[in-house]
C-alpha cells in the first residue's frame, strides 16, 4: 500500500464507491469554497473596520500622506487594502499602505496592523511605538491590558473587536464617541486592573518563595564557603610543608654532591701520594750509595782537621797578643770620639739659634709692613666714613627740607600777598589823590588867586577823601613792610640748609636758633597745638657752626609736633632755656604719645624710625645727637607712653 495516499481516498474500484467518492469530493470542494468565501468576507470586514477605527480617532495635524503599515503574510488582506486605499481620504490626507512580512516600524507610520501570526512580537513592538501617536491594531491578541484595538471572534464566529481607550490616549490620540457605535467592546479596565493586581500578588508570592529559597541557598553557600576556606588553609599548610620538605631534600642533595666531590679529590691525592712514595724509594737507594762514599771522605777529612787544629792553636796565641794592642788603641779612639760629639752638638745649637733670630727678624719686618698697610686702610676707611657721614647729614637736611617746603611756601605766599596786594591798593589810592597832589605841585609862590586856589584845593581834598586815603596808604605801607620782613626772616631761616660742614666756628645765639626753627615749622603747628616759649633773659652764646643748632632744635620740635598730633587741640609743646653758670640748658617738653623703654634706647640710632615707611628717614635724631656732640654738649631723653616726652640739651657757653 502506498503510504502517501490519503486515507479518505482509498483505491476504489466499485461504481458505488466511485459515486460516493464523487459526492465526497463535491462536498469537500463546496466546503472549501465556502471557507474561502468566509475568509474573503473576513478580510474585507477587517479593512472596513480599520478605516472606521481611523476615522473615529482624533489625529494630530500632518502634511504627509496617512500611512498604514500592515505586517502580514495574508495576500488576500493585502489585496483588499490595495484595492481600497486609493479611494480613501483619512484625516484629510491621502492614504498610503505598505506591507511587510517581517516585523518593522516604518518612519512616519500612523497605523500599524499586525495579523495574529506575529502576536509573540507584539510586546517589543509596543515598546518601540510607545507614546509616538501611532495606532496599533492587533488580531486576536490575548493581553487585554496591552491592546489598543484588537480583532476578536464572537461566540457565533463573527468578526468583532475590542479597544482599550487608556492605551490609545497614552499614544496622544483621542477616541471619538463614534467608536462606540462601531459595535466593538471597550476593555474593562477594572478587570484588567484586577488581573494585573492578581498577577502582581502571585509574583510577589513567587518572589517571597524565591527569596526564601535564595536565603537557604545563600546559607548553604556560606557553609560551603566556610568549608572551602578551611580546606584552602589546609591546602596552604600542606603546600608550606611540601615546600619545606623540598628545601630539605635540596639541601641534602647539595651535601651529597659536595661529599662525593671531596671523595673524588681524596682518591686523586692518594694516587699522587703513592707515586711520590715510589719516587722516594728510588732516591733513597741512590742516597745509600752516596752515604757510603762520603763516609770515606769523612775519615780523610778528620785527619786533615787534626792538622789544622794545631795550626789554629798557634794562631790563637798570636790573636791574643794583637787584641791587647787593639784595646789600648780603642781607648784613645773613645776619648777622641766624645770630644767630636760635643763639638757637633755645639754647632747644631749655634745654627738653630741663628735661624731663630733670622725668622724673628723677618716676621717683625713683615708685621711692620702689614701694620703700615692696615694703618693706611684705616685712614682710608676713616675718610670714607667721614664722607658718608657728611652725605648722611646733607641727605637728612634735604629730607627735612622736603617736608618743610610746602609749609614754607605757604608762609612766603602769605607774606608776598601782603606786598602784592598792598602795592595794588597803594597805587589805587595814589591815583585817587593824584589831582590834589598835582594842584599842590602846580601852586606857584606868586599866585595871584592864592586864596581861590587854596579854597579849590581844600574842596578837592574833601572830595577825594584825602585824609581817609592817607590812613589807607599808611596801612598799606605797613602791610608791605610786614610782608617784606617776613619773607626776609624765612629766607634767613632757610640759609641753614645751604651751609656746608667745613665752616669755621662762630658765636651762635641759642635763642635766635630756636626762633629760626620755630619760624620754619610755623605752618606745621599753627593749625592746632600751642607752643610756649619760656626763654631765659640771659643772652646765651655758644661756639658753634651756623645753622646746625637750628637744625637740631628743628628736628626735635618737628618730632614733638608729630607726637602731639593725635591729641588734637590738647597738644602742647614747651620750650624752656636756663643757665646754670657753666652750661646752657634747652628743655623741649611735649604731652604727646610718648615712647616705650625699648624705643628710647634706639632713637639716636641712624635709620631707626617709628614712622611709616617713607614718612621719616630715621636720621633726624641721630644727626641731632651728632650736632650736639660736635658742640661739646649732651642730650638726654625722658619719656612715658601716653604722658609725653622731654628732651634736655646741655651746651657749654662760649668763653
Amino acid at each position, binding site marked *: 500500500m502506498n503510504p502517501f495516499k490519503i486515507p479518505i481516498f482509498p483505491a476504489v474500484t466499485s461504481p458505488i464507491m466511485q459515486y460516493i467518492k464523487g459526492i465526497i469530493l463535491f462536498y469537500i470542494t463546496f466546503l472549501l469554497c465556502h471557507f474561502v468565501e468566509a475568509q474573503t468576507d473576513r478580510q474585507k470586514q477587517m479593512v472596513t473596520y480599520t478605516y472606521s477605527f481611523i476615522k473615529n480617532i482624533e489625529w494630530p495635524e500632518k502634511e504627509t500622506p496617512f500611512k498604514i503599515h500592515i505586517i502580514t503574510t495574508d495576500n488576500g488582506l493585502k489585496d483588499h487594502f490595495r484595492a481600497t486605499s486609493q479611494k480613501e481620504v483619512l484625516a484629510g490626507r491621502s492614504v498610503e499602505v505598505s506591507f511587510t512580512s517581517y516585523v518593522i516600524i516604518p518612519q512616519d507610520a500612523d497605523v500599524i496592523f499586525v495579523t495574529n501570526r506575529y502576536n509573540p512580537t507584539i510586546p517589543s513592538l509596543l515598546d518601540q511605538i510607545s507614546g509616538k501617536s501611532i495606532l496599533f491594531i492587533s488580531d486576536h491578541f490575548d493581553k487585554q491590558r496591552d491592546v489598543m484595538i484588537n480583532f476578536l471572534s464572537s461566540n457565533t464566529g463573527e468578526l468583532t473587536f475590542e479597544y482599550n481607550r487608556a492605551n490609545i490616549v497614552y499614544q496622544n490620540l483621542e477616541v471619538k464617541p463614534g467608536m462606540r457605535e462601531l459595535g466593538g467592546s471597550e476593555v474593562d479596565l477594572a478587570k484588567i486592573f484586577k488581573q494585573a493586581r492578581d498577577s502582581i500578588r502571585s509574583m510577589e508570592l513567587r518572589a517571597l518563595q524565591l527569596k526564601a529559597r535564595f536565603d537557604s541557598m545563600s546559607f548553604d553557600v556560606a557553609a560551603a564557603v566556610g568549608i572551602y576556606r578551611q580546606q584552602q588553609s589546609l591546602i596552604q599548610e600542606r603546600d608550606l610543608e611540601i615546600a619545606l620538605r623540598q628545601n630539605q631534600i635540596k639541601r641534602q642533595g647539595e651535601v651529597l654532591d659536595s661529599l662525593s666531590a671531596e671523595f673524588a679529590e681524596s682518591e686523586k691525592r692518594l694516587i699522587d701520594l703513592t707515586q711520590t712514595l715510589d719516587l722516594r724509594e728510588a732516591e733513597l737507594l741512590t742516597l745509600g750509595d752516596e752515604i757510603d762514599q762520603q763516609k770515606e771522605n769523612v775519615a780523610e777529612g778528620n785527619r786533615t782537621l787534626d792538622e789544622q787544629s794545631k795550626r789554629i792553636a798557634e794562631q790563637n796565641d798570636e790573636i791574643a797578643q794583637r787584641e791587647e794592642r787593639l784595646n789600648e788603641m780603642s781607648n784613645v779612639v773613645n776619648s777622641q770620639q766624645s770630644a767630636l760629639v760635643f763639638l757637633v752638638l755645639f754647632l747644631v745649637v749655634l745654627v738653630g739659634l741663628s735661624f731663630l733670630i733670622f725668622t724673628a727678624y723677618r716676621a717683625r719686618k713683615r708685621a711692620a709692613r702689614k701694620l703700615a698697610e692696615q694703618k693706611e686702610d684705616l685712614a682710608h676707611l676713616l675718610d670714607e666714613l667721614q664722607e658718608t657721614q657728611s652725605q648722611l647729614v646733607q641727605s637728612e637736611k634735604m629730607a627735612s627740607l622736603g617736608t618743610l617746603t*610746602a609749609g614754607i*611756601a*605757604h608762609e612766603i*605766599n602769605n607774606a608776598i*600777598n601782603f606786598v602784592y596786594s598792598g602795592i595794588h591798593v597803594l597805587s*589805587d589810592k595814589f591815583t585817587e589823590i593824584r589831582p590834589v597832589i598835582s594842584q599842590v605841585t602846580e601852586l606857584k609862590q606868586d599866585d595871584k588867586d592864592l586864596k581861590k586856589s587854596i579854597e579849590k584845593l581844600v574842596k578837592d581834598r574833601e572830595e577825594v577823601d584825602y585824609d581817609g586815603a592817607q590812613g589807607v596808604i599808611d596801612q598799606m605801607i605797613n602791610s608791605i613792610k610786614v610782608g617784606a620782613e617776613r619773607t626776609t626772616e624765612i629766607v634767613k631761616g632757610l640759609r641753614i640748609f645751604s651751609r656746608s660742614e667745613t665752616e669755621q666756628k662762630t658765636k651762635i645765639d641759642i635763642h635766635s636758633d630756636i626762633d629760626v626753627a620755630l619760624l620754619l615749622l610755623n605752618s606745621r603747628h599753627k593749625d592746632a597745638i600751642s607752643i610756649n616759649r619760656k626763654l631765659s633773659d640771659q643772652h646765651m652764646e655758644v661756639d658753634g657752626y651756623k645753622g646746625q643748632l637750628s637744625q637740631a632744635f628743628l628736628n626735635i620740635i618737628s618730632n614733638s609736633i608729630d607726637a602731639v598730633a593725635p591729641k588734637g587741640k590738647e597738644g602742647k609743646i614747651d620750650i624752656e632755656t636756663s643757665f646754670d653758670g657753666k652750661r646752657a640748658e634747652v628743655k623741649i617738653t611735649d604731652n604727646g604719645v610718648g615712647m616705650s623703654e625699648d624705643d628710647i634706647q634706639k632713637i639716636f640710632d641712624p635709620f631707626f624710625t617709628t614712622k611709616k615707611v617713607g614718612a621719616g628717614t630715621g636720621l633726624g635724631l641721630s644727626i641731632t645727637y651728632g650736632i650736639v656732640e660736635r658742640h661739646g654738649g649732651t642730650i638726654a631723653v625722658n619719656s612715658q607712653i601716653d604722658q609725653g616726652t622731654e628732651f634736655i640739651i646741655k651746651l657749654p657757653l662760649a668763653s
Partner: protein
Amino acid sequence: MSETKPSLIYLDDEEINLILFREMFKKDFEIFTTTSPDDAIEYVKGHNLDYILTDQLMPIMTGVEYLKELKELGVSDNSMKVIISGFTQEGEVDAALETKLIDSFVSKPWSYQNLKELLLSRRG
C-alpha cells in the same frame, strides 16, 4: 550805583590779608571780614550771602572744616564757596573740590583782576 552790590564774607587768621582784601574790593562787594570762625558762622547764619571766602590753614579750624560746618547747618547752600590759601596743593582741599564742597580754589598771592573775574563769573 543804586544797584545793590553782591555780598561777601572773608575769613582769614591774618588781619593784614583782611585789610588788603577790604581795601581792594570795597567798590565791588559788600564785605564782612573776621579772623574768628565762630563769628563767621554766626554772620553766615543771619545773612543770605553771594560769596563765602576763607583761608585754609587757621588755628581753630581749617577752611574745609568751617565750610563743612556751614553745610551741616544748611546755611550756605546758594553761596559760591572759595578757599584762598598759600598752599599750592593740599589733600583736604582737593577732596573738597571733588565733592563740590567748594566751588573754587585760589592761591595766594591773589591778583585783583583774576579774583574779581573768578567771583563775577558766577553771577553771569
